[in-house]
């Protein structure tokens, strides 16, 4: 079992060995992260799906911001190593992994076997993270999950700063006061995130295949803006948000020698 306790969501993946092939037995996601009821609930939900008990798990590995708070875990590892493994499982050709989570942005270089080779991480600043998008969605009175669809309907370019979440929020309010269209503002917000993240990615160097993981990978608008900025295809998967927990479960197998 791999448990990924992020800052805004808890994820859990159970992997089993089916005649030498690793496959996902069950998974769960609760949109509450470290310090909430999310971790306990996500474990309960992942086990309940197929009627598993904790005792059925051969090894439990915790990762993510809240990894140290999971008492039932046998091991804990940084989410960077876990995302590298999870992304490699989903896309074996992955060499660059862009993981945008609730409060962190990480760009990872992954080896052919899925091992983390090097990485860069954002500084203590919310710009470019999931938190940035949450703040903007609230100001725009739009649901987080609707951002991508609205952005796709943009017709006019509106630029939003990528320097600071607080200042960018003021910019958005100013654009709204000027009666700018929400769709165009959202498109500008996505380009703002892409600008910030691409700078970090270029610092590491972008090697193909490029894969996006983390909760923000669910936002197609950010993925397209990032793809446009980096001038390369960026792959993602419906399991992108589970990549950390998936990698943790795969690394739990390794701990058992599998």
């Amino acid at each position, binding site marked *: 079992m791999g448990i990924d306790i992020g800052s805004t969501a808890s994820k859990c993946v159970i992997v089993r060995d089916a005649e030498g092939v690793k496959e996902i037995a069950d998974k769960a996601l609760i949109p509450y992260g470290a310090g909430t009821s999310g971790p306990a609930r996500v474990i309960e939900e992942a086990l309940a799906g197929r009627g598993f008990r904790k005792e059925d798990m051969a090894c439990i590995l915790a990762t993510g911001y809240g990894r140290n708070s999971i008492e039932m875990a046998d091991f804990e590892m*940084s989410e960077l*190593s876990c995302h590298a493994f999870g992304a490699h499982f989903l896309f074996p050709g992955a060499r660059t992994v862009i993981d945008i989570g609730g409060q962190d942005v990480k760009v990872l270089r992954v080896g052919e076997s899925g091992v983390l080779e090097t990485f860069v991480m954002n500084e203590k600043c919310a710009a470019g993270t999931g938190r940035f998008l949450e703040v903007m969605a609230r100001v725009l009175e739009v649901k987080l999950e609707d951002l991508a669809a609205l952005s796709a309907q943009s017709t006019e370019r509106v630029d939003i700063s990528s320097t600071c979440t607080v200042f960018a929020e003021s910019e958005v309010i100013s654009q709204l006061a000027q009666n700018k269209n929400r769709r165009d503002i959202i498109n500008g917000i996505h380009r703002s995130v892409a600008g910030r993240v691409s700078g970090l990615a270029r610092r590491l160097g972008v090697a193909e295949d490029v894969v996006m993981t983390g909760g923000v990978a669910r936002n197609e608008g950010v993925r397209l803006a990032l793809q446009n900025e980096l001038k390369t295809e960026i792959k993602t998967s419906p399991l992108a948000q589970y990549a950390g927990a998936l990698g943790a479960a795969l690394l739990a197998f390794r701990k058992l020698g599998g």
Partner: protein
Amino acid sequence: MSTIQELLSQFDAAAANPKAQLEKHTAAGKKAIGCFPYYVPEELVRAAGMVPFGVWGAEGTINAAKKYFAPFYCTIAQMSLELALNGKLDKLSGVIMPSLCDTLRPLTQNFRSAVPQLPFIFLAHPQNRHAPWGVEYTKSQYGRVKKKLEDIAGAPITDSALKDAIKVYNESRAARRKFVTLAGKHPEAVSPVQRSAVLKSAYFMDKAEHTALLADLNAQLEALPDAAWKGPKVLLSGILADSRNLLQILADHNMAVAADDVAHQSRAIRADVPDAADPMTALALQFAAQDHDVLLYDPELLKRPEYVVNLARESGAEGVIVLMMQFCDPEELEYPSLKQALDKAGIPSVLIGYDQQMKDFGQARTQIQAFADVLNARK
């Protein structure tokens, strides 16, 4: 005889409680002079019969000093002023403040204005320090410092006293350099936090006392059998590496500090004062010999990064942790050259932002743990 751990506890106690050390000096009737970063010729203070006392900020929260600085300002400067404004430096009899970077220069002005009651000694080192006229300039600046220290002490600094002080300091630097090597060889005996405490306590303790204690520790470390260390060994680079929280994270992940390129640690003790008939000339020649520091002008841009690469190789470090002091222009400007040199040499590195107001070390923990994974995977 004290054991290694008992000796390390003594250094740790001194490093953790500078206030007690300062009060000990003043209770003994000694005047103490605050020595700010970087390269203060502390020998002059000792020769004047006073105690040099290092002031490199402190971990805490900045409130009163905010009146004097923009938020995006080095926290060593801000916290040093905060300490003074909160009365924590009241027992000092004066301060010596160099101006080797663009952050320290305004600090010298703001400090004078904000803390007028504390006798202030400004020190302008020359960046062109090698040429004879550079050495002469350093000597003239040190002469100014000497005169002001004599005024505070109420007595002249004799050549004989200065030569004695130079001897004490050269012995202290040699003992600390030896300790850095031994701590790198024996991480099983000296943790990253303890290593930092030994080096940091030298800024607060009487140097001769510190050296005597350290000589005992070094002798015992030298007598230890070679030990195999399974975890990764790293080199630390940056301005400061004295945060207990950060260093404990290294220990938590079985990481050892093989060596350092830290301004507060090894960069400060690389050059000894050479023999010279005139001790003031000798002190100026020591500054001329300081090298491989982002704060010092070097016409050969890539010489310092190569030095750090060689230091990593020679010390057996498998990776480099760059502790980037937030808003430190010299460190940030140099970083791309350093990163390029490390990449070229195939030495993994990680950049971790640090400032003295840091309360949450979660992000640093994630980075250090992932870096340990990277280094372990290469073994």
